[in-house]
């Protein structure tokens, strides 16, 4: 059996390349040119991708999954009803919720159920967004446009209910984009035995 051999010629060098010095000068010239242009040149002409973080920040894309927030009703109560769908869906098991019931004399009694404890361990969270997908009340959202602020303490990454409620969305509000008519709302035409049908 004969083997066909294809001989590939070694790439050679020109005399200028072989002389070394002109190529050095050419390379240095390019680097220094960029250096002066990017350091002292006008802003518009700079050819550089890095930003001076944290003084300058790049806007995250619109669908970026940032840290969580809990949306509020118009009376400031959490929209969350502690159904535990998010903690069921969470693959990292980082959400801990304890449900409770509004007392009968509470004006929010009509909403019936609320989370007395709502804690997200942001260190365990993998930011997959399943909690947002699972939420039937649009109560948990990741539209804050913020990543986790760095900290030297682990405690700072355990977000409780108050912290989560205090984070606004990208639009600066605490409300939901998908309002829902609930039995506790003033406008809800709900009835009770006293008011009759």
């Amino acid at each position, binding site marked *: 059996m004969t083997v066909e051999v294809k001989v590939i010629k070694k790439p050679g060098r020109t005399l200028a390349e072989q002389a070394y010095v002109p190529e050095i000068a050419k390379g240095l010239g390019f680097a220094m040119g960029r250096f002066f242009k990017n350091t002292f040149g006008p802003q518009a002409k700079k050819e550089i991708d890095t930003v001076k973080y944290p003084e300058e920040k790049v806007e995250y894309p619109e669908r970026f999954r940032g840290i969580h927030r809990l949306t509020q009703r118009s009376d400031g109560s959490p929209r969350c*009803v*502690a*159904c*535990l*769908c998010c903690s*069921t869906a969470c693959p990292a098991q980082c959400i801990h919720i304890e*449900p*409770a*019931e509004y007392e009968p004399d509470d004006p929010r*009694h*009509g*909403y*019936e*159920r609320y989370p007395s404890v709502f804690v997200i361990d942001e260190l365990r969270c993998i930011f997959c967004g399943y909690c947002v997908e699972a939420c*039937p*009340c649009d109560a948990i959202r990741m539209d804050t446009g913020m990543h986790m602020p760095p900290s030297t303490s682990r405690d700072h990454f355990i977000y409780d209910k108050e912290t989560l409620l205090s984070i606004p969305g990208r639009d600066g509000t605490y409300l939901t984009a998908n309002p829902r008519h609930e*039995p506790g709302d003033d406008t*809800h*035409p*709900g*009835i*009770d*035995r006293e008011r009759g*049908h």
Partner: protein
Amino acid sequence: MPKFTLDGKEIAFEAGETVMEAAWREGIEIPHYCWHPGLSIAANCRMCLVHVESGRQMAMPQLVFDADKGEYVPATKPRLQPACQPAAAEDMGVSSTNEEVKTAQASVQEFLLLNHPVDCPICDQAGECKLQDYYYEHQGTLKRKLTEPVHKPKGVRFGPTIVYDAERCIMCTRCIRVCDEVAKDHVLDMRERGNRNEIIVAPGRELDHKYTLMTEHVCPVGALTSQDFRFKARVWFLKSGQGVCTGCATGCNTHVDYDPRNGKVYRLRPRDNADVNQFWMCDDGMMTYTRHDTDRLLMSTTGRGEERSPVAEEEALALAAEKLTAVDASKLAVVLSAQHTTEDNLALVKLAGALGADRLYLAALGGWEGDDILRSEDNNPNRSGAKQAASGASLKPVGELLADVQAGAVQGVLALGWATAETLEELAPLLALDGVVSLTSHVGALPAAASVAIPVADTFEVDGSFVNAKGLTQAFQPALCPPDGVEPAWATISELAAKLGKDLGFKDLQGLREGLVDAVEAAQ
């Protein structure tokens, strides 16, 4: 037995049985809401409509749109019947899956969801709700009604145990029938019609009989929720163990629903057993689960009152052995427990035999209000089992033990369990004795009177059996693991025997149970 055909499958039935009942016995489910095997037939939910294809067909007139003519033309459709009502007949051909039936099921399901508030996020029934299950199985279409649903009262308190939500209610009347037929108390009824239809409590009454939680148990949707279980847990996290109720000597079979993530029991549900409790349980029995994690003894202790201090279990066993050896066998009292399994009691009887102690007593709770439905007046689950374990020997009550202690006939006590009718003040004579050893799962008067208390596992944590008032032996499996370092009482007793230098003749539960056969035969 005569047979009929359901969807091509032959099903045997007894005379008088309905199609639904016969199918249910065979393990075939025809979708239904209002029918319950333990209740009378209401046939009002219309979910179980089936087509009886054999025999003379009844036809209903209807209008069908004819695309060629561009108008509605008269036609007929077969008349369907609820499977829960007509009695099955020989060679009857029934279809629960043909096109007409499927359309009817989807339509009924859509009708029941017409004004449903869809507040599943706040509803405890979510996860075990028939409306949810049947929506996926039989409907699966989007809502067509665009107007505001009809609103009804929500969160109505029916009594100390039950909360009612009229918007979720599908008016199947199961709760009314449970009160009428099981609890024999007509406290619930229905008022108004159509959109205004709702369940009400009799005026001047509360839903407060002994079987109120059964209304919640039979409710196929989330209309009735239990005040106790309300918002505590999501059912899809719960796992179920098979237990026997410790509430009374009836021994109702239970599902022990617990969360495996934290080892906490959240509720008991009745488990069907035609020989014992049919489908039901009483409220007090269902609440016995709360005993499990309240006042548990988790560490061995020595000393009494203020001097009580925790010790390692090994040390406690050695101390107990020392104290028991110091007492003459003829003056040692062994107290069995009517709250512990027959196996635990048998191990203790064997230890008494090995020590040569023949003074056997029985600690038991003092009884509660019984009825002729399920509740036995004896609120101890295993009085008969303790008697069997003692091979029929007479078991004297704790009252006699106290008298014997005062008379000087008893100088040492080895007691099982926490349950006694006596208070700590009444048990005062025991405080004078040095050698009182208690093997107990919970704190209580008897452990408090003991000089050495050693923790053992609770009923939810052991493999064992109870003998109910009728003499029926019922075995159950552990739902949970005992706390760290705590073992079932029979294992602790066997360790104590080893410290005392006695061999009880069994190595494991299987070996112990072999001894039980002899004990039962001797008891007879």
